[in-house]
C-alpha cells in the first residue's frame, strides 16, 4: 500500500538525516547476525514467501548466497518485500543491506540514485501480454490500447518511449504494486499488460485463467536485472559482486551443490583456489575467511542449478536459458576469473 511508501520514505528521511549511514556494512551485518535483503513482494519463481513465511526464488538465492558467504548461514536473512517505488529509498537509507529484486541496471540508478550494481543475474527485456481472444499478434497493432503498468519502473518509461517512437497512442493505468496491476488486467481494465518478460511469465501463473493470455513476440527494451548495494562501501560491493560471479563460475567449472566436496580435491588449481583449498588467498583478498565461496555454492548451488530450480523449463515459469546461458554456450553469463 501507499502507506508503506510513505512510512519507508519517512524512515528514509529519518535515516538520511540522522546518524551517518554506515560505510561498514560487513561489520554491521556480522554484529546484527543476519542480512537485511530487499526483495519483490511475491513474484512466483523470483521471490515468494510460502505459507510459513519462508522466502524462496531466484532473487532470494542471491541473498542466501551472500548470507552463507558472510555469516556462514544461508538462513540468516531477513527479507523486506519492497514495491518498485519503495526499493531505492530503502537501500539508500540503510534499511536494507542489499537489493535483490528484478531491478534493471540503468545509468540513472547507477549514478544519481547512488547505487552500485552487482553482475547481472538475469538478462531480460520488456514484453507485452494480451488476451488470446483479441487476435493481436504484434505490438504494432496496439495503437489506442489501454495498458496496465507498474509505477516507478523502467517499464512505464520504455512504454512511453516506444509508443512515441512508433507514432502510436495508448492509455496508461498505473499502479504502485505489481499485484494491483495484475488484478486490474485480470478484471479486464486493460487490453495489455506490460512488464519484464520474466515478470509476465510469473504473473501469468496467478491469473484466473493463464491459458487465456498470450505473450507478444516483440521485446522492446534491455532489462539487465541485477542486485544492488549503496555507494560508499567498496568492500561490501565486492562481496556481493563476487558472490554472484562465484555462482556463475561454479557452473562453468561444473561445480554443483552435490559434487562440491569432490571438487575440493580437483586436479584443476583454478577450482581448488576458488573453493579455498590449501594456500588459497580468496578469503584474504576480500576480507572473509577462505571458505566463503565454498559456502555460497554449497548452500544454493551454481547459477545453472538456481535457474533450473526456480525459473527454468521444468518450472511453471518455463523460461529458456537464452541470453542467460553461459558464454561457453553462446549466452551472456560470464564470470570474471577468480585469480
Amino acid at each position, binding site marked *: *500500500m*501507499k502507506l508503506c*511508501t*510513505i512510512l519507508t*520514505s*519517512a524512515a*528514509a*528521511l529519518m535515516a*538520511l*538525516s*540522522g*546518524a*551517518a*549511514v554506515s*560505510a561498514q556494512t560487513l561489520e554491521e551485518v556480522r554484529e546484527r547476525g543476519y542480512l537485511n535483503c530487499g526483495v519483490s513482494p511475491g513474484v512466483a519463481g523470483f521471490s515468494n514467501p510460502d505459507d510459513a513465511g519462508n522466502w524462496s526464488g531466484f532473487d532470494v538465492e542471491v541473498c542466501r548466497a551472500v548470507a552463507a558467504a558472510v555469516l556462514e548461514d544461508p538462513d540468516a536473512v531477513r527479507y523486506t518485500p519492497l514495491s*518498485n*517505488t519503495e*526499493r*531505492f*529509498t530503502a537501500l*539508500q537509507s540503510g534499511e536494507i543491506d542489499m537489493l535483490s529484486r528484478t531491478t534493471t541496471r540503468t545509468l*540513472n*540508478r547507477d*549514478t*544519481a*540514485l*547512488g547505487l552500485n550494481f552487482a553482475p547481472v543475474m538475469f538478462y531480460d527485456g520488456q514484453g507485452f501480454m494480451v488476451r488470446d481472444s483479441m487476435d493481436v499478434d504484434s505490438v504494432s497493432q*496496439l*495503437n*489506442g*490500447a*489501454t495498458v496496465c503498468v507498474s*509505477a*516507478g*519502473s523502467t517499464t*512505464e*518509461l520504455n*512504454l*512511453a*518511449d516506444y509508443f*512515441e517512437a512508433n507514432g502510436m497512442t*495508448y*492509455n*496508461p*493505468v*498505473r*499502479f*504502485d*504494486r505489481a499485484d*494491483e496491476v495484475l*488484478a*486490474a488486467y485480470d*478484471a*479486464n*481494465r486493460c*487490453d495489455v499488460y506490460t512488464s519484464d518478460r520474466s515478470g509476465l511469465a510469473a504473473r501469468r501463473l496467478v491469473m484466473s485463467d493463464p491459458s487465456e493470455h498470450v505473450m507478444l513476440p516483440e521485446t522492446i527494451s534491455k532489462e539487465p536485472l541485477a542486485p544492488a548495494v*549503496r*555507494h*560508499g562501501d567498496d568492500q561490501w560491493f565486492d562481496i556481493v559482486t563476487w558472490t554472484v560471479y562465484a555462482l556463475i563460475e561454479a557452473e562453468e567449472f561444473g561445480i554443483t551443490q552435490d559434487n562440491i566436496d569432490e571438487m575440493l580435491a580437483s586436479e584443476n588449481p583454478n577450482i581448488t583456489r576458488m573453493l579455498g583449498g590449501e594456500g588459497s588467498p580468496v578469503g584474504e583478498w576480500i576480507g572473509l575467511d577462505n571458505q566463503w565461496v565454498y559456502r555460497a555454492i554449497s548452500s544454493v548451488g551454481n547459477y545453472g542449478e538456481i535457474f533450473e530450480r526456480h525459473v527454468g523449463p521444468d518450472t511453471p515459469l518455463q523460461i529458456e536459458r537464452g541470453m542467460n546461458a553461459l558464454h561457453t554456450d553462446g549466452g551472456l553469463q560470464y564470470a570474471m576469473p577468480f585469480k
Partner: protein
Amino acid sequence: MPVSRDLGPMAPPRTPFWTRSRIRSALIQVGFVALLALLIQFLLANTMANLDRQGIASGFGFLENRAGFDIAIRFSPFERNDTYLQALWTAVANTVVLAVLGIGLASLIGLVIGLARVSPNWLISRLAAVYIEIFRNIPLLLQLFFWYFAILRPLPGPRQSIEIGGGAFLSNRGLYLPKPLLDSGAQLTLVAFATGLIFALTMAHFARRHRAATGHSRPVLQWWIIGLVALPLATWFATNASMALSVPALEGFNFQGGMVILPEMLAALLGLSFYIAAAVGEIVRAGIEGVDHGQTEAAQALGHSRGQIMRLVVIPQALRIIIPPLTTQYQSLAKNTSLASAIAFPEIISIVAGTTMTQTGQALETIALAMAFYLTVSLLIAAIMNFFNWRVTRRSF
C-alpha cells in the same frame, strides 16, 4: 495565566530578574526556539553530508527535466515530453479536483443521511444508521478497492459496451459521453447566461430587501426572463453561434471522441464521498439534535410547517454546531485522496511521491513537495471553513 508574584502592597523582597515569571517564560521560549533551530540545522547538515557521501543527487533541479511518462487522467494539460514540474502541476490539479468534487458529494450525501437519521420515520432512520455504521467502520482503502472492482467486474469490455442512449456508452473502460464543441459565440453565450443569472439574483435580492423594509413586494419575474432567456438568446444570434457534438464511437480498442469518466476517477470519487459522508451524516445529526427542542416547539406554535421549521429555524442554528467538526472531515477527505493512488488515480502520491520519486531517486525533495501540498490544502480548507463559521456565528437570528 501565571499569577505575577511581585505585585500588590505586600510585595516580597526583590528577587533576581530571571525568576520573574514573565521574563522566565520568555527566556525558556527563546531557548526552546534556539534549540529547535540547532536541531533542524544539525539534521539538515547531516542529511546533506549523507547524500553527498553516497553520491545521491539533491536539490530541485530535476523538476526541469523531461518526465517521459504519461498520465491518463489530467485536469491540466500534460504530455510525456513535459517536465516533472508540469507533472507536479497536473498531480496538484487532479488532487484538487478530486477533493473538491468529493467534498461536494460527501456533503450532499451526508446531509441526506443526517436528515434521515433524525427522521421520525423508524425505517428511514434505521437505514441511515446502518449506512453510517457500515461506511464509517470499514477502512477506506478497502472501500476504494470495493468500488473499483465493483465498477470493473460487472461491466462489459468496450466492444460490448452498454449503450445508454443519447450517444453515451458504459463499459469497464469508463463512461463515454458526447462532448459539446462550442465555438466562440457559444462560449460567449455561456458567459451571457452566467451574467444574466447574477443579474437576476441581484434584482431578486433587492426586491426581498425592499419587501423586508416596506412590506410591499415587487415583481421579479421579468428580471429572470431577461437574465436567463433574453440575454443568452440575443448573444447566441448576435454572434451567429453554433454548437456541434463530438459523439464517442468505437474505433479499434476503444471509443474515440466525446469525453470520458474513467473508472479510477469514478471509484475514487465514490469511495471518498461515501466514506466521509458517513461522518458528515453524524455531524449533521448531532447539529440538529443540538438545537434546543424548545425552538422547534416555538416554531410549531407559530404555525410553521415541518419543512419551514427545518429550513428557517433548526438548520441555521445547527450550522454553528456543524461547521467546526465538518472542517476536520473535509481535511480528512483532502488528505485521503492519497489512498486513491492504490486504484491508479494519478494524484500527488502516485505522480510525485511515486513515479517522480523513483525515476529521479530524490526521495527527500519529492516527499517534501507532497507534504507541502497537503499542508497547504489543509490550511486552505481550514481558512475557508473558518470564514464560513465566522459568517454563521456573526449572523443573529
